[in-house]
């Protein structure tokens, strides 16, 4: 029951997302656009770009993830699907987890896939690129998981879009710090295993707690 519910929910969300491709592509374009704005703003010097590159990529990834987050529950809230999720025999945290997984695949995985291209823009070395992709792979699921709590809290609020960013960005500060520290260490070819392990710990912690918290937030929003 639990597994089949999870799979069915994932299938539905992925199918819906691929039917509305333009909406999925927008955060990706936004991501690329922000990153190409930075060289224009701070000057094209390769040294500077390499120095601030990891931070730029991470901040841009956080911002474009914020853009896509609202999709996670907003439409389902408007057409009453969320109520059906509450009534379903599959536990709500499992369904929330399925939505988180499909959201990550749809709106964040493409960002990670284009990041090698952006590494060329920002003059990152291949060692830095490796570290960057690794931190993105481990870190962005945390964004989706905590994002589910944020969207769950704000889904019944009109114009909740900016509010989600206000709630989530302060909470995501540790992620940004640890991830960019890992890439910085890779710049000077130091080992960055420690940072990666901390990221993994953050991922496990939010994996354990966030679906339950998000399910509770949805219940509060729907009552």
């Amino acid at each position: 029951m639990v597994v089949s519910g999870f799979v069915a929910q994932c299938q539905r969300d992925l199918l819906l997302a691929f039917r509305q491709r333009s909406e999925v592509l927008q955060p990706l374009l936004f991501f690329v656009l922000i990153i190409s704005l930075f060289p224009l703003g701070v000057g094209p010097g390769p040294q500077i770009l390499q120095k601030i590159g990891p931070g730029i990529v991470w901040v841009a990834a956080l911002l474009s993830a914020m853009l896509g987050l609202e999709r996670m529950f907003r439409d389902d809230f408007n057409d009453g699907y969320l109520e059906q999720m509450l009534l379903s025999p599959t536990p709500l945290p499992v369904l929330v987890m399925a939505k988180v997984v499909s959201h990550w695949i749809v709106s964040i995985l493409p960002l990670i896939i284009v990041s090698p291209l952006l590494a060329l823009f920002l003059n990152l070395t291949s060692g830095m690129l490796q570290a960057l992709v690794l931190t993105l792979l481990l870190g962005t699921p945390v964004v989706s998981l905590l994002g589910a709590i944020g969207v769950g809290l704000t889904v019944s609020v009109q114009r909740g879009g900016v509010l989600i960013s206000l709630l989530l960005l302060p909470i995501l500060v540790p992620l940004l710090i640890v991830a960019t520290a890992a890439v910085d260490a890779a710049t000077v070819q130091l080992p960055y295993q420690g940072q990666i392990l901390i990221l993994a710990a953050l991922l496990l912690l939010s994996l354990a707690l966030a679906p339950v918290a998000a399910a509770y937030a949805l219940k509060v929003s729907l009552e």
Partner: protein
Amino acid sequence: MWKWLHPYAKTEQTYLLCGRLLPWFSVLGLLLIVTGSVWGLVFSPADYQQGDSARIMYIHVPTAILSMSTYAAMAIAAVIGLVWQIRTCDMAVAAIAPVGAVITALALFTGAAWGKPMWGTWWVWDARLTSELILLFMYLGVLALYSSFDDKQKGGRAAGLLAIVGVINLPIIHFSVEWWNTLHQGASITKFDKPSIANEMLWPLLINLVGLAFIIGALVLLSLRNEILRREIKRPWVGKLTGEQNNAI
């Protein structure tokens, strides 16, 4: 203890309790803070290195310490509200958040005013300053979430959940920021050694700390009373209290 606490799940009882406690908190708080401030600002010796500018410590240190404790108090209220579904606790979350935000802003402001003559700059990205700034953002997040709900009961529970998520995150933020700072800047100028503080400076500081805690308590009681009245305005007991019967259902 449960029996003793249970009546306060009713808003009316809590309202009356707040009213009974309020004079104690405000009188004690005012007394202590006036004593501590006058002692600290006028009679205590000036710091041998920092001179008279160090006197801002008597305001800055209490606000900085209590900004954290106030967040903890808000999160505890939120946990009680979440676990036992006590409505007055959700109201307490909404009542504590603005007070905490003001205290945090005060700590940042007095810190900046102290930093200017001592470090020569209003702001450095030191670990303590950064985590205090993020604490302010988290208070503001709770406030923003609460105020964006039309249904205040729902808003209170949502804000409570956010406060709990925040309190799990605060230590993580604190340590990551500390780590980030040491990674990027090495030993920074702003790390004080724990000063073995002279007694005649320690006493006014402690008095101000306790006094400010009472003042915060008094402000929270006041705003909790307001919160209860605002949410229960249609209840008969509120109508009786204000002598206005036409509000009753």
